[in-house]
């Protein structure tokens, strides 16, 4: 079963939930789609890591063939090309790799070349296959990395740790999921962003439920929101100093403490039932 974990707001506990669910499952694959700021590997500390470089196609010009017609400059909607002093100048970092300029050039002066934008690292931590996407700093978009991450063989339960927000990179991350877990924190900020991401999963018709994290009392705006909207509350994880310590030290709660193990085992069981 492919389970995506998302939240809208950052810092609510997506990684906590996805890492621990992957740890309690008998056999699982953990995929970190937060390629700008990946964190899951810090907890798993995977071994036997293999790296795969991810590249995008960038145009290069043969200045001898180029006649300065500027069809490519006019075509490019991203303004990645400019023509000055009899030379075509190409801006890799603005290029979206659509291949259009190569198509429109009447003189075959443009070709494409690969430019690395990041990498995927695959390793193992006990029974978990850990897959991490990492975007190079300074690069604008991690979508090609996510495409690579999600286009692979998985075994057992698959946990997809999504980026924060609800922009297209999040949509890419949940597109193939069977079930979505929305993680919410008990603040007005949390509810506001939960609402956005709820809209997203409804748009995609994904079965979903909410995990209320960092619960500190009865007055929980996120819980009220769920009840209002009729959203399934899958679990309530209390705000717990011990859990916070374990987590901030990069350790996996379900592997260290039976009570926490139970919480996540119950959650996984609940999700597997609900996803059917």
């Amino acid at each position, binding site marked *: 079963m492919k389970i995506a974990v998302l939240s809208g707001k950052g810092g609510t506990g997506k990684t906590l939930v996805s890492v621990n669910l992957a740890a309690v499952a008998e056999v699982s694959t953990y995929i970190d789609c937060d390629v700008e700021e990946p964190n899951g590997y810090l907890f798993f500390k995977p071994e036997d890591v293999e790296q795969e470089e991810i590249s995008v196609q960038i145009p290069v010009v043969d200045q001898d063939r180029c006649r300065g017609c500027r069809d490519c400059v006019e075509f490019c909607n991203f*303004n*990645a090309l400019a023509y000055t002093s009899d030379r075509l100048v190409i801006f890799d970092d*603005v290029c979206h790799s659509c291949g259009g300029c190569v198509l429109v050039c009447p003189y075959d002066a443009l070709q494409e070349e690969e430019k690395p934008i990041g990498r995927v690292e695959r390793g193992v931590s006990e029974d978990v296959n850990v897959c991490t996407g990492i975007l190079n700093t300074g690069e604008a978009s991690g979508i090609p990395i996510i495409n690579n991450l999600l286009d692979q063989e998985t075994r057992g339960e698959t946990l997809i740790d999504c980026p924060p927000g609800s922009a297209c990179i999040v949509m890419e991350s949940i597109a193939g999921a069977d079930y979505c877990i929305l993680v919410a924190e008990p603040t007005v900020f949390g509810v506001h962003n939960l609402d956005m991401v709820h809209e997203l999963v409804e748009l995609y018709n994904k079965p979903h439920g909410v995990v209320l994290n960092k619960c500190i009392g009865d007055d929980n705006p996120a819980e009220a929101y769920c009840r209002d909207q009729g959203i399934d509350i899958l679990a309530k994880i209390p705000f717990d100093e011990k859990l916070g310590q374990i987590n901030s030290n990069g350790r996996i709660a379900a592997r260290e403490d039976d009570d926490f193990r139970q919480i996540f085992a119950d959650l996984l069981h609940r999700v597997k039932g609900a996803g059917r």
Partner: protein
Amino acid sequence: MKIAMPVNDKSMESGVCLSFGRAPYYLIYESDSEEFEFIDNSAAASQGGAGIKAAQQIVDEKVEAVLAPRCGQNAADVIEAAGIKIYQTEGESIQDNLTAFAQDKLLALDEIHAGFHRHRGR
């Protein structure tokens, strides 16, 4: 000599614009005849690569110098490739900067800053 400067509005009183790539207008000034015109910046509404498109427009105007408070790396690459020099303006007054330039008082813009998608030294 033909000069270009990013400005806030189509008037000499409007002031130098802080952004090069997304300035709403450019002043194109001919220092010999003191003739001038204001042109719209075709790149102002661009999703991305505004500096590049704006610079392309300036290059096509065949100016010899650009006066601006700041300039991104991408725009600078296009402008410099065309052999056009960039000078740093001081303060907001368009007229003061034109005068200072005529008296050779403006310095070359050294601090080109990285554009939205560029890493320096890579």
